[in-house]
């Protein structure tokens, strides 16, 4: 069959390409204009927790140390009201083979690709996931291609992304480095067609199942170390997989009352597909540029149905500033002797603010760290920011303006979280779901699904739909 390779032609074939590249028949889980059988998909296509543990043990993934941050906890207590200041623990995920929790996701995808007989794996990612897939592919002797969004139109790349590209090459991957733009997905689809490789998407049930072990370990190990389940687990949130997999794992560990708190770096005002904004972000992941769109419409992913559905699982969503994350990265190195991040420390910044609200006998767990290296370091990233014309200064982090000014706090008491009202995210999700249904009849099944997918109620969904329809009528 001869197929055209223009942007429009390839995008028109996306569903067929993706279907054969992950080996999942997503259509059979569809149950309505909006609804689909999420748990059915996770059960049938994913693996059990025991199976995942076994897969991950084969490639030395997981069972990372749970570290109590005693000095940081002490700092928090010094700046908190009497009786406040929860114990802060961190799951040192940088101890995974390629240096981040992403190994958990990659381990299952690469295992799956090999098991199903694919000749190789491809992942589209500028983040730690690329290194994770390349590393796991090396361990299992599978070929690997990574497609990265690396440069602006002047050939300049954020040092963090350059480092991640280097890491992928170090693990033996073929690395495609692109300039800015969502057409990365088009290049990705063409490569899938050309090679017949497996789509090691971040958003398959395999990938999410791979993170469940992290939540499970956090739950059980915290209980062992402190005598109680975590009162709160803070999760750096971007595409939603981290929140989803961790929360599912926590539930499987028996954590019934643990609050799952998502945290993103606030990049409000920067356009993710803009050639000029690209190198002014100072963060390549864990930010609101992914966090908000993936929470309000998870099915924008590179598979027809995203297994990462963060709204189902987050009890609270907060943002922190760029400057706060760089500050706590320095804090972690100087007070705890752990050089990690920076992007992975987004949840640590949030934890410091949240622990202040909590009682001293409570426990908050930061569920990841990531490796630090050349380029992936506050010095490299802030120096690059300065070169791009971003101002860097000490002061009140409330003065931080993404892309213009990074404000490093002067005191730990200035670290605060900003709430993202979940009710707004839920409404926005429902609006997106209705618009994707394109006027098809919405059934009670769809309403029930929306209630589950937004962790709300049928009454809330019905009311929101009425409001939206009323708004259109008046509009």
């Amino acid at each position, binding site marked *: 069959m001869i197929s055209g390779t223009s*942007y429009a032609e390839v995008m028109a074939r996306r569903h067929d390409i993706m279907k054969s590249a992950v080996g999942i028949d997503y259509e059979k889980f569809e149950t309505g204009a909006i609804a689909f059988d999420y748990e059915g998909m996770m059960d049938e296509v994913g693996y059990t927790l025991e199976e995942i543990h076994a897969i991950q043990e084969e490639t030395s993934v997981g069972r990372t140390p749970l570290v109590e941050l005693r*000095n940081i906890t*002490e*700092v928090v207590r*010094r700046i908190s009201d009497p009786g406040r200041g929860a114990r802060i623990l961190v799951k040192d995920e940088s101890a995974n083979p390629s240096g981040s929790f992403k190994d958990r996701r990659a381990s299952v995808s690469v295992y799956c690709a090999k098991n199903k007989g694919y000749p*190789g794996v491809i992942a589209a990612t500028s983040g730690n996931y690329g290194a994770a897939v390349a590393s796991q592919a090396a361990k299992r002797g599978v*070929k*690997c*291609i990574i497609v990265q969004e*690396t*440069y602006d*139109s*002047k*050939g300049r790349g954020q*040092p963090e992304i*350059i*480092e991640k590209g*280097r890491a992928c*090459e170090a693990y*033996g*991957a*073929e*690395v*495609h*480095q*692109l*300039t*800015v*733009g*969502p*057409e990365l997905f*088009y*290049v990705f689809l063409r490569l899938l067609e050309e090679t017949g490789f497996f789509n090691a998407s971040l958003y398959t049930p395999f990938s999410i199942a791979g993170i469940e072990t992290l939540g499970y370990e956090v739950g059980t190990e915290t209980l062992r170390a402190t005598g109680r389940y975590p009162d709160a687990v803070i999760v750096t949130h971007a595409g939603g997989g981290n929140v989803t997999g961790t929360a599912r794992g926590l539930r499987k560990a028996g954590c019934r009352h643990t609050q799952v708190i998502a945290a993103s770096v606030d990049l409000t005002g920067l*356009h993710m*597909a*803009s*050639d*000029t904004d690209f190198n002014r972000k100072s963060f390549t992941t864990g930010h609101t540029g992914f966090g908000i769109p993936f929470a309000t419409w998870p099915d924008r992913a590179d598979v027809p149905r995203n297994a990462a559905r963060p709204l189902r699982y987050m009890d609270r969503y907060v943002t922190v500033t760029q400057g706060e994350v*760089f*500050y706590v990265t*320095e*804090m972690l*190195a*100087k*007070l705890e002797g752990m050089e990690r991040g920076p992007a992975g420390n987004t949840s640590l910044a949030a934890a410091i603010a949240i622990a202040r609200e909590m009682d001293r006998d409570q426990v908050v767990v930061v569920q990841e760290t990531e490796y630090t290296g*050349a*380029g992936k*370091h*506050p*010095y*490299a990233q*802030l*120096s*690059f920011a300065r070169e791009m014309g971003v101002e*860097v*200064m*000490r002061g009140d982090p409330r003065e931080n303006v993404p892309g213009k000014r990074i404000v*490093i706090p002067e*005191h*730990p008491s200035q670290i605060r979280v900003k709430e993202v009202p979940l009710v707004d995210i839920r409404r926005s999700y429902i609006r997106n779901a209705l618009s994707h249904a394109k006027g098809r009849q919405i059934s009670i099944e769809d309403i029930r699904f929306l209630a589950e997918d937004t962790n709300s109620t049928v009454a809330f969904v019905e009311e929101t739909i009425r409001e939206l329809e009323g708004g259109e009528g008046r509009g």
Partner: protein
Amino acid sequence: MAKVFDVVRSESAERVRAGEYVEIHSIILKPGERAPQVPEDTQRVPLELRIKGYLDHDAFVGDEVTITTVLGRKVKGQLVAVNPPYPHSFARPVPELLHIGEELWRLLGARGVKEVREGDEP
């Protein structure tokens, strides 16, 4: 049109031998072919690709060439660099971060750093 590009100029006059580890560049989508949802600044520039591999035949920097990637796949493009270095580093220490450690240890009143009490001279 020539692009602003980190071509290793010193090697531009020399023949690059087959088998050398090189970087090639190509245009995937021209400005008029970009996706409709792309913002205006991105619409104005092409979607470009860089990839590394082993040169299939002798050539000069700037030539259209074919490489064999680490996976053994053939890719065509313009030869732009021979074994380019990784340009990233840890960079210089950032002054705004330098004192955070001592400030926090002072807050904890430990590690030989004198705790600053109210009324103390700074």
